[in-house]
């Protein structure tokens, strides 16, 4: 391929990445700042780990984080199951009744403003409670259902696009060699699309972990998630502990994403090497 890049494009790239990363770096740097003023560097006492220590003893944040982990884990598993099924249906079944509706229902949550999704789900839960008595009040269950609904759409897109490039003769070959359809799915199809399913799982986990708006609508008393706690803190002004939280989040995400990407680049090379 031709490798010409104009000065203009290179400048844009440099500025674009600076724009994306300067805020992130500033949080990392100031997480080691001793001053409570956050953005004023206290060179006498910095760098320090005192805010890390403070964060690890902040029970409000730790409790919220625990709730977030629970919701995100259940959500990711549920969303992967539903999203994989939907992705499979859309990629494999050329024609079935309701195909258009299903594809619209899995695209819409990707762009739907969160306030609308959040409000509508809350009103559903309230109406359901009135009608059938379930769910009794709002909390982790309602939040998880809400998260699964929008994050399964992301899983669907990922799985569907992976299946679109799947060589169908692999499944036929397995059947030809005597494997029954269900076995073919578990022994051939699933292992090959596993990277896509895994990225769907990670995506669903992250979406749930980060979500503020939909959680705010669908949570109940005593089930504040980490973003909800952070939001109420940030509204009151900047806090050094949030910088620490951000730094930890960024480090964990970077390690996981880089690791998974490297692993996937390897398996992708295997899957797409010319037959």
């Amino acid at each position: 391929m031709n490798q010409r890049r104009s000065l203009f494009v290179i400048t844009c790239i440099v500025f674009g990445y600076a724009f994306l990363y300067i805020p992130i770096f500033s949080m990392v740097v100031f997480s080691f700042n001793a001053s409570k003023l956050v953005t004023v560097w206290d060179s006498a006492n910095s760098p320090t780990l005192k805010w890390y220590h403070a964060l690890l003893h902040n029970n409000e944040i730790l409790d919220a984080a625990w709730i977030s982990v629970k919701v995100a884990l259940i959500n990711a598993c549920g969303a992967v199951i539903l999203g994989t099924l939907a992705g499979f249906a859309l990629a494999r079944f050329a024609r079935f009744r309701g195909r258009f509706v299903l594809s619209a229902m899995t695209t819409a949550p990707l762009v739907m403003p969160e306030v609308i999704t959040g409000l509508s789900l809350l009103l559903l839960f309230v109406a359901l409670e009135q009608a059938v008595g379930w769910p009794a009040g709002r909390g982790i269950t309602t939040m998880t259902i809400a998260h699964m609904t929008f994050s399964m759409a992301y899983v669907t897109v990922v799985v569907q696009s992976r299946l679109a490039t799947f060589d169908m003769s692999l499944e036929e070959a397995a059947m030809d060699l005597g494997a029954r359809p269900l076995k073919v799915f578990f022994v051939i199809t699933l292992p090959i699309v596993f990277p896509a399913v895994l990225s769907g799982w990670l995506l669903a986990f992250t979406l749930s972990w980060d979500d503020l708006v939909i959680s705010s609508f669908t949570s109940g008393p005593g089930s504040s998630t980490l973003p909800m706690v952070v939001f109420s803190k940030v509204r009151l002004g900047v806090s050094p502990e949030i910088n620490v939280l951000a730094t930890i989040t960024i480090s964990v995400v970077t390690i996981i994403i880089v690791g998974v990407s490297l692993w996937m680049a390897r398996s992708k090379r295997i899957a797409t090497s010319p037959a």
Partner: protein
Amino acid sequence: MRAVLGRFKFGGRGLVVVLPYVWLMLFFVVPFLIVLKISFSDIDLAIPPYKPLWIWDGEHAPAITLNFNNYTFLFTDKLYVKALLNSLKVAFVSSMLCLLIGYPMAYGIARSRPAVRSVLLMLIVLPFWTSLLLRVYAWIGLLKANGVINNVLLHLGLIHEPLTMLYTPFAMYVGIVYSYLPFMILPLYANLEKMDWQLIEAAEDLGCRPWRAFLSITLPLSRNGVLAGSMLVFIPAVGEFVIPALLGGPNALMIGRILWDEFFSNRDWPVASAVAILMLLLLVPFMMWYQSIQAREAAASE
């Protein structure tokens, strides 16, 4: 519900379709019908804080009282119309800014060497995986009166008094563009990556200058990527809540924020529902457009 289920043949294949179908029907489509219903009811000091739409005394046919007050209220009070128009403006300007910044970046990534490309791409995706809330929060630290940017500028002697940047429309635009940039770059990149660059060579071979070749070949061919990226920024930005709430200050009139306040502060669920329905009516055409672009793109790559 039974009618919907009955249309599928049960069995392995049927189950694959039915499970996600029923889930999305119940938790995605039905909720909108409830929002629609409540948008026609009256506010009530009760739990839940709205009056039932139909009252049935057991003898007469149910009396349905459709109440358009919430909608007339939205259009008589200038606040809502202004907020709606302002949201559209902010979302449009933000998508254009994202496009201006994102296109050259996506182009540069698509044309870089494969090894560099995967690193650049990962750097685009990485912020996308870290919490939006935390990244928006970072801008508070950068933009506020004694924040990083003002400190640097003061230190360099470029300004003598801190600039007011936080809680202005400027801060809100910065926040939206910053948060949604990856959503613009990724579909654009996906589109440009499939581009046959020999077309550009052919155009240049036929006497086209590079800039002209870009305008007459690359840009038209990346049309679907441009549209998809713009929709991915525009639609959610219209209803954005977090960024205006944190960066925009009290005067940032955004419809998502109005909905939030109606719901959480005023506890006026019917008006909040009416706002949601209005927003939805406005956005559905764009969503359908987005889906048709996606379908076209999928058809083109087969």
